[in-house]
C-alpha cells in the first residue's frame, strides 16, 4: 500500500519537501491533528528555537524476529540492518527509537544477543516493549534481564519528551486461553496513576505490541482489556497508539485517539481473511519483500498535539 506524497502543505518549505521525498520514497504520509488523520505533506522541522514544544521526530520499528530463518526472509538481520541505515540517514535525526516488540523469534539468548548486536547500530536510544515471541521461554525473565531497566511490573514504563507523554505498555504476558492481548489489573492501576498528573492538553503516545483495538479476533489481533486503558486515555486531546504484531499497516481514528500499526522488519503477514492463518506470507518474490517491510517515523510539528506519521518501506 504505497501512495505518493500529496500536494505541498503550506507549512513545508521547498527544501524540506525535497529532503523528505529523497528518503520517504513511495511511503505513506499521514498527519494527525486534533484526532483527524489526513494524508498530506510532512512539515519539516524548523530551527526549533524556544517555545514550550520543540519540534522533534522519533522512529518506530517493530517485529524484527531475530532467529527467524524461513521464507520469505532467511535473514532478518540483513533487513534490520538496512532499516538502521535508513534511520541513521534520516534528514532529521530521531530523538529516540521505539521498538514495539517481537525483537526475537523464540526468545533464545543467542537471538537476544544478535538483536542487541545489530540494534546498537542505531544512533539513537531505543525504548522497547516485548512481543509474545520475546516471552516464550521462561516468561519475561530473559527479556527483563536485558530491557527491564527503568520499567515497572512486567516491563511497562513512561517518559516525557518535548512536551509529549510516552507510555510503553506490555500486553503479551499472562495471555488467557481463547483470549487476545492482555494488560492486567496491576498495569491498568499503574496507568491510571501515571496519567493523573498530566493535563488533558498533553499529547500522549502509547506504544505497545498487540493492537489496542480488535482488528481480527479470530487471529488474536486485539487486547482483551484495552477498553479500560482507552477509558483512561479518552480525556486527552491527542492520543496516538502505536503497535506492531500484525506486520502490516492499519489505522483507525476514534475521537481523539488515533491507532496506527507498523510493518515488520522481518516478514509480512496476510490481511485478515486473505489466508487461513496469520503466519508469514511465504510466496513473496525477493524483489518485493522490501516493499512490505518498513519503519515508521513520527514527527511533532509546532502546533500542539499535531503529529505527522510517515511510513516508509525498505524498497
Amino acid at each position, binding site marked *: 500500500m504505497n501512495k505518493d506524497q500529496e500536494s505541498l502543505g503550506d507549512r513545508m518549505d521547498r527544501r524540506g519537501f525535497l529532503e523528505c521525498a529523497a528518503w520517504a520514497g513511495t511511503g505513506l504520509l499521514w498527519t494527525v491533528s486534533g484526532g483527524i488523520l489526513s494524508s498530506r505533506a510532512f512539515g519539516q522541522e524548523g530551527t526549533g528555537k524556544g517555545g514550550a514544544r520543540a519540534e522533534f521526530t522519533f522512529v518506530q520499528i517493530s517485529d524484527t524476529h531475530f532467529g527467524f530463518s524461513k521464507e520469505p526472509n532467511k535473514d532478518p538481520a540483513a533487513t534490520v540492518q538496512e532499516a538502521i541505515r535508513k534511520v541513521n540517514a534520516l534528514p532529521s535525526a530521531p530523538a529516540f527509537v521505539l521498538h514495539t516488540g517481537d525483537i526475537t523469534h523464540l526468545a533464545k539468548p543467542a537471538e537476544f544477543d544478535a538483536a542487541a548486536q545489530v540494534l546498537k547500530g542505531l544512533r539513537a536510544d531505543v525504548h522497547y516493549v516485548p512481543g509474545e515471541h520475546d516471552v*516464550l*521461554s521462561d516468561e519475561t525473565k530473559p527479556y527483563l534481564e536485558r530491557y527491564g531497566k527503568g520499567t515497572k511490573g512486567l516491563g511497562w514504563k513512561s517518559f516525557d519528551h518535548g512536551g509529549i507523554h510516552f507510555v510503553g505498555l506490555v500486553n503479551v504476558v499472562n495471555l488467557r486461553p*481463547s*483470549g487476545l492481548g492482555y494488560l492486567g489489573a496491576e498495569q491498568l492501576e499503574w496507568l491510571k496513576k501515571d496519567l493523573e498528573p498530566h493535563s488533558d492538553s498533553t499529547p500522549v503516545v502509547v506504544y505497545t505490541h498487540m493492537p489496542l483495538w480488535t482488528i481480527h479476533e479470530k487471529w488474536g489481533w486485539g487486547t482483551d482489556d484495552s477498553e479500560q486503558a482507552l477509558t483512561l486515555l479518552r480525556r486527552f486531546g491527542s492520543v496516538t497508539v502505536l503497535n506492531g504484531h500484525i506486520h502490516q499497516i492499519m489505522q483507525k481514528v476514534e475521537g481523539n485517539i488515533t491507532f496506527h500499526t507498523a510493518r515488520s522488519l522481518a516478514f509480512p503477514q496476510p490481511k485478515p481473511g486473505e489466508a*487461513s492463518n496469520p*503466519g508469514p506470507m*511465504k510466496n513473496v518474490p525477493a524483489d518485493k519483500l522490501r516493499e512490505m517491510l518498513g519503519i515508521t517515523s513520527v514527527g511533532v510539528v509546532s502546533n500542539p498535539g499535531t503529529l505527522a506519521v510517515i511510513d516508509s518501506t525498505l524498497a
Partner: protein
Amino acid sequence: MTTTIRTRAMCLLLLGGLSASCRNPEWPAPDPGPANYMAGPESGTPLVAGFSNASDVQVRIEDFKFEPSRLTVSPGTKVTWVNKDGEPHSATSSEKPKRFDSGALDSDKSYSFTFAEPGSYSYFCKLHPHMTGVVEVR
C-alpha cells in the same frame, strides 16, 4: 473433522502405569507395515471418536490448529505434539499451576507428555491463545 491420530500398535509396557484393561494380548507384535496399524490416515479409517488405547498418540499442529483438538486417551498414554506449521507454537496447560508446557516448539519440533491420571486437560498455544485443545483421560 477427520481424525488424524496415528497410532502404533506397540506391544505393552513401555511406560509405567498402564491400565491392564487397555491391553489386548491378542495384538500382534510391533512390525513396521500398514497391516499392523490399527488405523491411520493411510487406511482412511479413523479410530472410534479419537479414542486410543495404544501407549503413543500424536497431535499435529498445523494451520494454527491442534489436530485433533479433542483427544481421548487412557491413563498412561504418552501424547506427542508435533509442530508442522511454519510458525512456532506451544502446547501449554490452561490450568494454574500448569500441568505441562511444551515451551516454544519451532517447526518440526515435538514435545511429549504422559497423562498418568484421569481427568480433563485443556491447553492452548501461548503465542496464539485462540488455538485451544483438550486431552480427556479416562
